[in-house]
């Protein structure tokens, strides 16, 4: 059961290895540049821009989970904002009732993960479309319950959530939250990278391709599916906690169904089953929406312009990527880059290779997005060594 197909293709192996080595190191350099760049960036941002930065970061954290779920475990979740909400409410309620905010931050992903683990036992019996609707239903039920229970603040939500404090210092500067988010994103990406590179990660790929085959090869299918579901929920929970501390106010209206769909859009656009794809997808979508927001609030524009623009962006980008760049932006870019470098190194573009590259891969289709996953993950830099590979 070798899930890594095509990496070694006959006679052109050496050329390919050389060019992919070069790409890999280019990817690592790029990864470091992005990492350092995003670390320096908050220093030069205004308060409004910092808000975008933080929200982009939390969206990335959730999207990494969605991408892992869709790309690796072949499950579509249309209710990921539910776990975002659970994280936010956990952190908010704990700190409002006098517990230390750091404890809230730590408990948020745990609670979200545990809820997903419990809910997942019945729900993950479902597959494909059924699962997608079940997750959506789960979110609607959760929102409806939260809106009716006074303990959760009801329809009005929770006000006056205390600030996050670390080592006895309250974080009141938005810049501090930018760094908290940076650490959160890095952590989530690191965990995902290590899972993908590990033995369970290979099991997951096999599972996404064919559940029956994976099961017969000894992959504990049910347990793995549940674990990935819980893990993606934990990512969302952590993001939700940061969101709650940053804004200081959450309500059922903060977590609409549309938010869940946004995460799916970001995951699909960036490239499913990749570590860096969600960052690309979240950044592209968030910045595009921000830019159009600015355009929509210009004088002379009708009042609804910015809302309409954002809906239109989600729709056009999502459909466009699914129809024409099925792997998503990042994997497509990597494939193009690889072709360019190969041509430049003068390596023979063997028929085996090109056939290998041009295989049409499905975006949301789990089995084929696995290829996209390899392209994206294997060659664009990875945040850390894969000790988990053992």
């Amino acid at each position: 059961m070798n899930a890594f197909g095509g990496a070694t293709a006959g006679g052109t192996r050496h050329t390919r290895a050389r060019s992919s080595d070069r790409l890999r190191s280019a990817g690592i350099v790029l990864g470091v540049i992005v990492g350092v760049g995003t670390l320096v960036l908050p220093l030069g941002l205004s308060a409004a821009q910092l808000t975008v930065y933080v929200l982009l970061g939390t969206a990335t954290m959730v999207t990494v989970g969605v991408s892992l779920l869709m790309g690796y475990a072949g499950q579509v979740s249309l209710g990921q904002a539910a776990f975002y909400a659970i994280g936010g409410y956990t952190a908010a309620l704990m700190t409002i009732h006098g517990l230390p905010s750091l404890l809230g931050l730590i408990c948020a992903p745990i609670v979200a993960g545990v809820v997903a683990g419990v809910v997942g036992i019945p729900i993950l019996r479902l597959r494909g479309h059924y699962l997608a609707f079940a997750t959506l239903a789960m979110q609607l039920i959760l929102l409806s319950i939260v809106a009716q229970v006074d303990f959760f603040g009801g329809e009005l939500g929770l006000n006056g959530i205390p600030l996050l404090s670390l080592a006895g210092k309250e974080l009141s500067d938005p810049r501090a939250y930018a760094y908290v988010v940076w650490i959160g994103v890095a952590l989530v990406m690191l965990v995902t990278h290590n899972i993908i590179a590990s033995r369970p990660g290979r099991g997951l790929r096999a599972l996404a391709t064919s559940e029956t085959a994976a099961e017969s090869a000894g992959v504990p299918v049910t347990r793995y599916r549940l674990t990935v579901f819980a893990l993606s929920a934990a990512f969302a929970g952590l993001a939700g906690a940061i969101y709650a501390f940053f804004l200081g106010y959450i309500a059922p209206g903060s977590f609409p169904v549309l938010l869940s769909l946004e995460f799916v859009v970001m995951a699909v656009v960036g490239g499913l089953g990749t570590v860096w794809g969600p960052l690309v997808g979240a950044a592209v979508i968030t910045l595009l929406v921000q830019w159009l927001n600015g355009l929509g609030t210009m004088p002379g524009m009708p009042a609804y312009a910015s809302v309409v623009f954002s809906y239109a962006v989600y729709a056009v980008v999502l459909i466009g990527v699914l129809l024409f760049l099925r792997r998503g932006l990042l994997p497509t870019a990597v494939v193009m880059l690889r072709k360019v470098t190969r041509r430049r190194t003068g390596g023979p573009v063997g028929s085996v290779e090109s056939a290998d590259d041009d295989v049409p891969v499905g975006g949301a289709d789990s089995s084929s997005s696995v290829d996209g996953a390899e392209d994206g993950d294997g060659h664009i830099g990875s945040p850390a060594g894969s000790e988990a590979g053992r």
Partner: protein
Amino acid sequence: MSAFLTYLISGLAIGCTFALVGSGFVAIHRVTRVVNFAQGTFAVVAGMMAGSMLGHGLPHGLAEVIAVVLAGACGLAAGVIAIGKPGTPTLSSLVITLGIAIGAYAVEIVVWGDQPVSYQMARGSVDIAGAHIQTQYFVVIGATIAIFIALSLFFSRSYVGKALTACASNPYAARLAGINPIRMGLIAFTVGGVLGGLAGVLITPLQPVTFDADVALAVNGFAAAIFGGLNKPSAALVGGLVLGVTEALVAGYYNASYQTEVALGLMLAIMIWQARKRLSVVEEVH
């Protein structure tokens, strides 16, 4: 007793609209294997279109027909985008229909605004056993019965309907018999659009429709369709009626705000129960 009768009939009427949305899901899914997330959108588009046509002074009947035709055209357009490109995986198609639903928000807000739309269809009420019941409920129930009879005749008697059924039961064999599955898929999407549109036209007089009402309609319709495993229109009718009456009774005797949970919980329970059944069938076969 009169209260019960009111709840029962209003529940049946609401359930009929769920059944219409649900049968749209079925019509599309059985041929294309795609669950069309934009199914609620067709209802919203038709409801709003009928509202603005009536507002412009068009007579009843004509306004509704135009609205349903528009919904059918939207269904066709959605089908072209979702399955028109050969080789689109079904799960991609699901996410594409999701995109269509979001994109429709933009169009709906520009054309009709973001305020709820409603209009009157049948005025007055009928007294039965001491209960005041809006005439509109009976209009909805009667229309739905007629639509389902027409639908079953369409699928069993007409040439296109038979071809659709053939595609649903075995796409490969249907292709061998000279039926083009993609064209059939597009026809299925159009039929789905028309059914969604009919639901929208009928439900708008009962509950005002906003641009984002499609999620609730789609979820309830899906819950209705799931009764028959997304493959039998008649089961969607039964499912819709059960769901509508349950919701109305919960809202009437207990608390209106819990009706969503009840409906969704019922849907989840049925899906999980069916999945268990399916798995055991698979095990038996192997």
